[in-house]
């Protein structure tokens, strides 16, 4: 190695060995990006342009079954008209053309690229180009069918005025149902999980029967049956809301039990042996040595269960809640039946996403953290 080369290497930073790019792969990459950008910008620009203009219902809109008497008809019409805007049409075809060139060039050339970065650019360009083509085709297909009918029912936000507080209350109730259900489920699950690990079948069997029953029957059946069982069977007079929390807890308990069981089983055998060899009883060993380690490992899957439960709370619609207890989904359904406008469900989806997306990110971060061993659960390292 020559002296100049040696000086170029910074010992503190790993060298970048991917090499420079070249005009051809850079062009392919740019074409792929351009394809997606052109399509997105064209569609968005048309939509914004039409939404901001003070248009009236056009003849073509009325032909497409949008009645001037409909609340919000103008807004819906704008969406549909904007889809047929020459700017949208042009950008869609241009996007397909750019994407096609990127795809063909990228596929034809990536094998011949002589550095890693060049190959990356060629392949990424081809992939983005393909995505642009698919996106354009989807939009073209959508607008060739009955976009007016769809927009009228799912993108007509005029009827939602005044429902803001109802949705906020719905979100609060959904979170209450899910949180209370999850907490109850974790307690039930921890107990059941430990029971399933017993070496005695007489202890294991009832726990397994419970778990298999709740995992094996539909949650909506459990909600209805559980509510009426409590009400008529046991004579417990509970609100549908409270009954739902109990059933959610019982159901989540079954899944959480499996999570805890797997978590405990994932702790090395040597851990319980070490604890027992120091004179600890089985329950002491579990409590001080095993469960604290297992808990760290089960946090991501339990959070995942929580996200699932948030969405599953929509099933309380089967129980007939009182208005103050409406969750997100029931709120949307009530709005929809009052106005015959399904845009309420579109908003419901957005409301669920607002709650679940941050949680999903949190789960992924927790999983990554656990994998990297930063929480100190890695085994004996030499």
């Amino acid at each position: 190695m020559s002296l100049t080369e040696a000086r170029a290497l910074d010992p503190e930073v790993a060298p970048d060995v991917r090499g420079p790019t070249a005009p051809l792969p850079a062009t392919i990459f740019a074409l792929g990006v351009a394809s997606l950008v052109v399509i997105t910008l064209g569609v968005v620009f048309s939509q914004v342009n039409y939404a901001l203009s003070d248009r009236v219902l056009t003849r073509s809109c009325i032909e497409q079954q949008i009645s001037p008497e409909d609340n919000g008809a103008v807004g819906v019409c704008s969406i549909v008209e904007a889809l047929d805007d020459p700017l949208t049409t042009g950008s869609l075809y241009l996007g397909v053309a750019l994407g096609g060139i990127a795809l063909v060039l990228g596929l034809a050339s990536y094998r011949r690229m002589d550095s890693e970065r060049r190959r990356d650019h060629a392949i990424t360009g081809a992939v983005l180009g393909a995505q642009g083509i698919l996106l354009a085709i989807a939009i073209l297909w959508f607008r060739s069918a009955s976009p007016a009918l769809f927009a009228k029912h799912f993108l007509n936000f005029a009827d939602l005025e005044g429902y803001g507080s109802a949705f906020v209350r719905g979100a609060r109730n959904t979170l209450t149902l899910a949180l209370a259900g999850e907490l109850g489920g974790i307690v039930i699950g921890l107990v059941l999980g430990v029971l399933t690990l017993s070496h005695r079948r007489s202890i294991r069997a009832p726990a397994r029967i419970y778990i298999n029953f709740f995992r094996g029957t539909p949650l909506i059946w459990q909600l209805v049956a559980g509510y009426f069982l409590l009400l008529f069977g046991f004579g417990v007079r509970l609100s549908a809301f409270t009954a739902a929390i109990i059933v959610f807890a019982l159901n989540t308990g079954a899944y959480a039990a499996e999570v805890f069981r797997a978590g405990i089983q994932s702790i090395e055998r040597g851990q319980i042996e070490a604890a027992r060899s120091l004179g600890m009883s089985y329950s002491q060993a579990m409590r001080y040595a095993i469960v604290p380690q297992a808990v760290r490992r089960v946090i991501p899957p339990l959070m995942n269960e929580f996200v699932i439960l948030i969405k599953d709370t929509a099933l309380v619609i089967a129980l007939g809640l009182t208005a103050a207890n409406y969750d997100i989904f029931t709120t949307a359904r009530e709005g929809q039946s009052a106005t015959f406008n399904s845009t309420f469900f579109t908003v419901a989806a957005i409301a669920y996403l607002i709650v679940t997306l941050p949680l999903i990110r949190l789960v992924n971060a927790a999983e990554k953290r656990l994998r990297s061993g930063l929480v100190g659960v890695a085994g004996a390292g030499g």
Partner: protein
Amino acid sequence: MADLETTDATIRGTSGVPLVRLEGIHKWFGNLHVLRGIDLTIQQRDVVVVIGPSGSGKSTLLRCVNMLEAPTLGTVWFEDEEITDIRADLNEVRTHMGIVFQAYNLFPHMTAVRNITLALEKVLKLPSDEAHDRAMDQLARVGVGNKASSFPGQLSGGQQQRVAIARALAMQPKVMLFDEVTSALDPELVGEVLEVMIRLAGDGMTMMVVTHEMGFAREVGTRMLFLDEGRVEEQGEPKDMFLRPQSDRLRQFLAKVL
């Protein structure tokens, strides 16, 4: 076999009840017959070394002593208590027998000192300051006093294993069991662990050591057992056995490992 047992008695003719006595130990794992009738007596201040090829049942035998592995057949006594009896309080018995494992088995979510104080507080019911003092003493004794607040993941294998030894010693056991405690260590870390064990033997600790360290077996062991296919193939004074192995199996084994 029969005359080997008599030599055993003559070598350590100490008076009084032996600390540990195993009689007719058999162990099956499923249909695998791992231990095939083993008798063993450990007296005060004995350092019993167990050698043998892998799969010969050395670790299983050691784990039968504190009942981490229950023998399928046979009896284990600790002092004058039969601990294979189902009514025996194994939790209490185990507080008198320390064991150190090949994989250290420290609790990874606790600091070194907490690893030691846990059982002192929860099992021996010591007040926490007393438990802490005792733990610090033991950590210093094995030479890792400055690592008290480190987590196992922050320690080298040798340091972890010494913490594990300190954890067992802190219970003030009457006998220490070592299960291939240097086998998982990088070669340059073996010495520091062996040194602790040699010092322990010098202090008069009763020990049972399953090991592949032939030098340690010869120098520190007061008695040696050679296990092969679940049987005690040969036993006696370590130096004697290394110098004049009686059985072909031991000769072959020593030829391979020395």
